[in-house]
């Protein structure tokens, strides 16, 4: 059967490369047309790549975490399917050498990353664990099962050294409950979303001089309002604090258009945006993602609540679309009950402001005569100090504070 490559397709406008985050197939798997073979990640969207033909996977184009260029060979597939369309016709290439072998002494030049065929295919999931009889005996005597032990030999064969390594690892981990010294370093590959976050944080923190303003806000009235609205909401979504903060933010931004802006520092241009697209920093299992509440300025409180709930679910289940994850003009970050007294949020570039919401709690308040209990909450807002002066930052935070302390101001035109 002829072998054909399936190339990494164009997965988004302007995207030139994508990171392999999941393989859905292994070498030897038989796939049908449209079966998902891999997931790749670009910017913040994860895209599933389907197979173009029925056939058998004979080589994978890289390891998890590897960045592949658009058009690079994603997999090689043994298929007798006729190449259906012109687009797929482009997929064919001249016949591969008759017997491309793994241990070929003169492999094709691949300077920076592994070639299309992995050099050392490991045993497949559920496949037999390979080991010589002497190694098997050692494993038996140690009371282990072969399949517990990763094999590093040819064809995934378990070597004597693999067993020794496994045993020393096991004995190292078994002493962790005592006070004995621990040894060893666990290496965790930074891939996928984590790598993306790392890159963006590095860039933001290195390029942007941050100024962070922390202010205390009395949210007793705001919380009263929220409780009343929730008590009469009927079928409407439950109102959390976020829609109210987003409404206050939109209101404040009408007077401070310089805060709802992107700073293109390479072009030397500040773009003030009309719409308020609020990025909502959301913790997911994989890491931080920022779904975007679009046109927050035009949403009612309950619509806003519904949209935020939908976005956060989509983000947590990994189903947020690329559109839902890009295009924010300002970002809110909240750690909820863990929100701390103050934080120093990192700006989500090219934005210029990020608003951090800290923990709400009852604190003593001096009303001139005595201490009274009030619900208080801090705001920690970071600004791009290259384009926003400290004075302006303080005025903006003060404005948000005023709106939140007297929520009627959010909704009346004064």
């Amino acid at each position: 059967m002829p072998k054909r490559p399936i190339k990494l397709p164009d997965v988004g406008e302007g995207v030139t490369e994508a990171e392999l985050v999941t393989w859905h197939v292994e070498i030897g798997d038989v796939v049908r047309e449209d079966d998902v073979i891999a997931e790749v990640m670009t910017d913040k969207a994860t895209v599933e790549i389907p197979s173009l033909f029925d056939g058998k996977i004979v080589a994978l184009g890289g390891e998890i975490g590897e960045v592949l260029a658009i058009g690079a060979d994603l997999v090689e597939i043994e298929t007798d399917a006729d190449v259906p369309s012109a687009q797929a016709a482009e997929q064919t290439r001249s016949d591969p050498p008759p017997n491309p072998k793994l241990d070929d002494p003169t492999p094709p030049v691949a300077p920076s990353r592994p070639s299309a065929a992995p050099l050392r295919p490991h045993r497949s999931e559920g496949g037999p664990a390979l080991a010589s009889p002497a190694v098997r005996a050692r494993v038996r005597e140690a009371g282990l099962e072969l399949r517990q032990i990763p094999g590093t030999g040819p064809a995934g064969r378990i070597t004597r050294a693999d067993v020794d390594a496994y045993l020393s690892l096991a004995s190292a981990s078994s002493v962790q409950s005592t006070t004995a010294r621990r040894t060893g370093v666990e290496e965790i590959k930074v891939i996928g979303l984590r790598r993306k976050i790392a890159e963006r944080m590095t860039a933001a923190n290195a390029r942007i001089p941050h100024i962070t303003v922390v202010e205390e806000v009395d949210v007793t009235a705001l919380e009263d309002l929220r409780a009343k609205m929730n008590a009469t909401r009927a079928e409407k979504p439950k109102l959390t604090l976020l829609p109210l903060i987003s409404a206050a933010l939109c209101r404040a931004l009408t007077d401070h258009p310089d805060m709802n802006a992107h700073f293109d520092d390479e072009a030397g241009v500040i773009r003030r945006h009309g719409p308020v697209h609020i990025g909502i920093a959301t913790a997911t299992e994989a890491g931080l993602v920022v779904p975007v509440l679009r046109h927050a300025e035009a949403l009612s409180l309950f619509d806003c609540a519904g949209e935020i709930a939908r976005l956060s679910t989509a983000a947590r289940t990994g189903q947020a679309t690329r559109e839902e994850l890009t295009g924010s003009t300002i970002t809110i970050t909240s750690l909820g009950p863990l929100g701390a007294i103050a934080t120093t949020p990192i700006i989500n570039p090219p934005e210029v402001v990020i608003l951090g919401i800290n923990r709400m709690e009852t604190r003593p308040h001096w009303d001139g005569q005595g201490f009274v209990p009030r619900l208080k909450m801090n705001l920690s807002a970071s600004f791009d100090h290259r384009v926003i002066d400290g004075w302006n930052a303080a005025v903006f935070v003060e404005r948000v504070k005023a709106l939140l302390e007297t929520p009627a101001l959010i909704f009346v035109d004064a």
Partner: protein
Amino acid sequence: MDTQHCQLLIIGGGPGGYVCAIRAGQLGLKTILVEAAHVGGTCLNVGCIPSKALIHAANAFHAQTAPNDLGIVSENVRIDTAQTQAWKNSIVAGLTQGVSGLLKRSNVTVMTGHATILDGKTVRADTQDGPCRITCDALVVATGARPTELSDLPFGGNVISSTEALSLSTVPKTLAVVGGGYIGLEIGTAMAKLGSNVTIVEASDRVLPQYDAALTRPVTARLSALGVDLRVSTKACGLSHSGDLEIEDHGSKSDIPADYILVAVGRTPVTQGFGLENLMLTMAGPYIAVDHVCATSMRGVFAIGDVTGDPMLAHRAMAQGVIVAEHVAGLASRWDKRAVPAVCFTDPELVVVGDLPSDDMATAVFPFAANGRALTMERTDGFVRAVYDPATEAITGLQAVGMGASELSGEFAVAIEMCATLRDVSDTIHAHPTLGEAVQEVAHLGLGHALHI
């Protein structure tokens, strides 16, 4: 009644039982082996060894009588089959004595007599000196198998099993063999070489039906060259009035002249007549069900060898015997073999280790016609075949058919147990000129760079 106690009691002194006993003795277990006849079992007494002796004699005789290109001319060659039998019996006697010596050296007590299981820990042995009651901590059933009898052709008269066929004092003028398995083919071929007119009757559409047609084709070609009348898809119906074999071929019945009729249609496990049914063990069909340490469903009762089913091979029984002895001695042994080699001493010989070709696997085949050693032995029929995982190139099966191919079984088994890849075999120097070079070549071939084809 005399009473004895031991840690390990083995019923049956065949290859499984005696190896289990020797290993147990080595490990310091107090071991008793009860054997009704001679130690060595079917294998040494009426199986592997006598048949190989007969095949050797037949080959030696045939080499003298068959026309050849070597310039050797022999006249008036004849065979004294009584002497052949005596020679064969001396080999058997030597080996069984050897086994007895090995058992003695390992401090195993051998009792000759019929054993009866009273319960899972108690056996009565009826020896010449009277009955003996033996209690044990662990019991091993190693009672083997016997030739399967056909209801239409019960053993007796000129209907014989392999046991009698290997002890015939004359070469029958005509021999009908019922069953195209390895036993029927081995004996039938030997008899043909000794001058008998042999007909082999097989019910399925080819001989050795458990193997693929490519593997058995050189064997059928040789059978026909030797003048053996091979009747496949043919049913043996019974004895005709004249004592010949009546067969049915596509609905039409006919007789095959036969001085003797060898029935070799398989082997039946020996599970009756010694109280095994008292234990109510879980069975797997006619066989005793065992786990990875050959333990049966009753605690402390083990079974090894042919009573545990296919493949019914001496070396499998031996390996099981070692595992049981070591397990009872407290060692961490268990059945985790990747392959049980199987050899048919047909002409040409056939050896099968591991996986046969399948759709998931890749295959490489190297013919002996391209092997120098095979050419010098005038036998270029057959080939070596490797079955391997195309993704990892791990070898999962090795087969060969060819003269002398049986001796390749060791390399095949080592390669598969060691989980060798094509590259491992390809990079191993194989001596020239030997048949084994074909094994290295088949690995080269799989890697795409065969040197001699």
